């Protein structure tokens, strides 16, 4: 049984003639410890899918369970608590608090949850993402790559069931992006951290265990990943129709 289970999820925006079906019946299953990449051209519904899986948006129909909890019926409060305890986020634009140092940003989820930080764990996470000496710096004093490392550490620190990463390399140059992907990959391997990453970059998807290809609101291919070239091939096949 997967940590994430989605069953026939649809999402319709707008009503009547103006209605747009972003998702048209998506089912998927992500087992624990897997690093899954969601790929697809813009407008394919990959972001919508991630938002719904992460409890940021609600499906029009279908069911989603995270770690056995059906989330489509949860009210805002329960959903928020679910995000707090079961989900970690890595955003394209980092979204760090400018007033806080790297370390303080990392501790933010624990503070919000009101849990006492486990110092050994926090140290391990900071070490894992390679932020050792930069921990006392504020976001403005950090490079984009360093900021994203902070964001990854912030996602890891509450030991979530699953981390959702939304175009984590989208705002970075390719060399830095590569380092960030490495950090994510290592985190998955070290902590068996289930991770779902949305990306349109084939080389990014290549570090995942599995790639899901979306087009027009449907999963059109679900394949294990081996290399960027494999993925390029699949993309070429798909676009050839």
């Amino acid at each position, binding site marked *: 049984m997967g940590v994430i289970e989605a069953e026939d999820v649809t999402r319709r925006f707008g009503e009547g003639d103006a209605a747009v079906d972003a998702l048209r019946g998506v089912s998927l299953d992500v087992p624990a410890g897997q690093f899954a990449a969601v790929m697809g051209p813009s407008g394919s519904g990959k972001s919508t899918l991630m938002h719904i899986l992460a409890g940021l948006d609600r499906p029009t129909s279908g069911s989603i369970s995270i770690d056995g909890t059906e989330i489509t019926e949860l009210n805002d409060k329960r959903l928020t608590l679910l995000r707090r305890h079961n989900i970690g986020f890595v955003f394209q634009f980092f979204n760090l608090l400018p007033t806080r140092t790297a370390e303080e940003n990392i501790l933010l989820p624990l503070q919000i*949850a009101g849990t006492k930080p486990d110092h050994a764990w926090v140290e391990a996470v900071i070490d894992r993402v390679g932020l050792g000496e930069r921990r006392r710096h504020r976001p403005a004093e950090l490079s984009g790559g360093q900021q994203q490392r902070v964001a990854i550490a912030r996602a890891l620190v509450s030991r979530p069931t699953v981390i959702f990463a939304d175009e984590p390399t989208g705002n970075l140059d390719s060399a830095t992006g590569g380092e960030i992907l490495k950090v994510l990959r290592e985190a998955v391997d070290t902590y068996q951290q289930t991770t779902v990453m949305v990306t349109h970059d084939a080389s990014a998807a290549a570090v995942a265990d599995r790639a899901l290809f979306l087009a027009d609101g449907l999963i059109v291919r679900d394949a294990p990943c081996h290399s960027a070239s494999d993925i390029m091939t699949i993309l070429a096949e798909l676009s050839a129709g």
Partner: protein
Amino acid sequence: MIRYALRSMASHKLRTVLTAIAIVLGTAMMAGTFVITDQIRNAFSDIFGTSFAGTDVYLSRRPAFGSGTGQDQVGPLPASVIAQVRKVPGVAKADGQIQAAGSLVVNGKYLKSQGGAPNLVVSTLPKPFNQNTLVAGHYPEGHGQVALIEQTATDHHLHVGQHVELTTLVGVQPVTIVGIFRFGNVSSIGGATVIATTFADAQQWYNRIGKTSTISVDGEPNVSPAQLRERIAAALPHFVKAQTGPQAAKQQTDQVSNSINSFFTPALLAFAGAAVLVGAFVIFNTFSITVAQRMREFAMLRTIGAMRRQVLLTVLGEALVVGVTASVLGLVAGVGFAKLLGALFKAVGFGLPLAGISVHLWPGVVLPLAVGIGVTMAASFAPARRATRVPPIAALREGAELPPTRLARFTPYIAGLLLVLGILAVFLGVTGSGPTTQRLFTIAIGAIVSFIGLAMVSRYLIRPLARAIGWPLGLRGGASGRLARENTTRNTGRTAVTAAALMIGIGLVVFFSVLINGFKQSFLGSIDKSVTSNLIIQNHSQGAPVPDAAVSVTAGVPGVGSATGIAFTNVRIGKGGTDVANGVDPQALPKLYQFQWQKGGSDALLGKLHGNNTVVEEQFAKSHHLSPGSTFQVTSVDGRHLTLHEIGQYKDPVLFGGFMLTQKTYARVSTDANPQVLLVRYASGANGDATTRAVKAALKAYPDVNVQTNSEFKASFSKQINQLLYLLYVLLAMSVVISLFGIVNTLALSVFERTREIGMLRAIGTTRLQLRETILYESVITAVIGGLLGIVIGVVLAWVVALGFRSSGIVFAIPYGQVVLSLVVAVIAGVVAAAFPARRAARLNVLEALQYE
């Protein structure tokens, strides 16, 4: 560019409205002040115009100096003048009138006037002088008949034919109500009670035998009032002042006008000014924040070729539209505010007659408009100039910061200097010489400058203050408390100005609380220290005399050890200012009042207090350069001179300012020798309660006197002072309300600015409640900073003023309860201000917020 400005404002309606409100309220207060003072003035003008309509020439005693008090305070004329006037050619008719203080007693109950208004007794004048309108019955024609003004009759359910009693200087007199009238055409003069008697009764009852207060003259048809006035003035001695009817009406209207203009108007305008100042802070802050938020927009304008001047005009154009709209709305709201003020004064007991509303261009319309628009423009000028410094390149960069101004590094020094200079100006204003208005102006400017200085200094205090205030919130609120604290320190300048707006309101509240408490404590302290009486007896009608007979009656009550009356009046000293002459009984007084003798004096000096000898208060001696042995001349209000010989000095600037004379000598400088205060001390061994009851029983015949124990007296004094304080609080509430809008505005703009951050916080598990708490704590921290700063500046300014008045015996005493209360008000303001922005933040859609740019 103006069209661009308008469009930009339309797209930020809420911000525009909140900013405008800050100015609407201030200008409304200003406009309302002019409206209501005008109404009061017109009402009195109507009243006096009507009452003198049938009078060609009006005679009264010429005051020896401007006493500023009512007509009969200057003393009566000999009744023989009436006969003299009648002999002047051209005089058709001349009659005397007596004006005195007294009220009715109905079923043993004394009828008080409302809210400090006088209890008037006037003798009835015949036609054409009598311009009143009868509502029922007739005017008094015989002994023991009285007529009442309609309001008094209605208020106390009195009717024609009713037998009641009237308080007089010779005890209560039985009278019959024979008529009810309107004053001209109005049913009331503020809250005053008005009782008309016959001329003969008034002479008998109010110590005016052979005298008259005033004389009204009607001329033959062929003589003009002006001619007649000249003839009469030529025929009568100099102490008779002759005025035509319109002159008298104008003079009395002017007297009211002057007292309004010298206190009422400036006081109200000062509160309106405080509100406008707070509004200026709100405007400055809102424009600063929006300019910072619109940097990319300005940079974009610059890249497409807009000149700096055009950017400046865009922002100033917005300010102009806000200023004009808000000021015009303020004018309209001013009418409502005037109504509110009228109701407020009535509620706290200052019942004043109000005429209909009339609008005058100057100053009623022009001044509030000019101030409202001017302040808006002035407050937005600095932010507008900052907007011009946005480099075009900022359009392409995210999170570009405005370059600091060249003067930025001097700011802390300038701020500190302003603060010190402001406080110094207040001190100089208090202690300086020169006209009162000029000194008050210096104090006001000093206060404003010190507020601005502290507001500028405070940005350097925000971090430690936020840390201290946020600490308990952090304990209780966890992440919310910490986030709130961080948010308030994110832009210290912004938080400082937001807090400063509240600081002004709270600062003024604390300033007046401390100052008035000091005044109260000085008075109560002096009584505790020096007055050894058990009872203090006064007239119910403030300042009115206690009948002399009541003194002897009280002295004869078993259990009373000593009783002494004290009379006081204003006299002119030498050729200069006025001061207080106190008429005392040198034998009795030391048993009831403990002198603090100066220069080696002792109670033995009182043995020498006879004839023209006087003992003087230390401050009085100082300001007139007197020492034991020196002499000085005093002039009574009715023009009698007396040379006094100083034999010693005591210290008590609060209760016994001026100098003391024997009651016999006092009568030579006063128009009324009856005392205003009667002090009573029980005989040793007498039962206190029983004696108090006995004194009250003995004084039943004088229902206008109010018998109070010392503690009752002190309590009623405190109550009066507190009432004044409450009135000030209500007037200052406007300033607090405006600053509240400022907090709302800052929070709303900050929430808007942090939209994406809020999205992130919600995504990683912050609940709506936690988010609301964060905004709430942020608001409370800001408000409490404002409150604390306000308390500090209020206390400091009050201390400076108290220091300046130290020689007058005013002490500096902090009313801790009220100070704590003002902090509670700040907390409440913070909670209220947070409601709307917190709701807005909590309702943000997480996804949209995350994608917000």
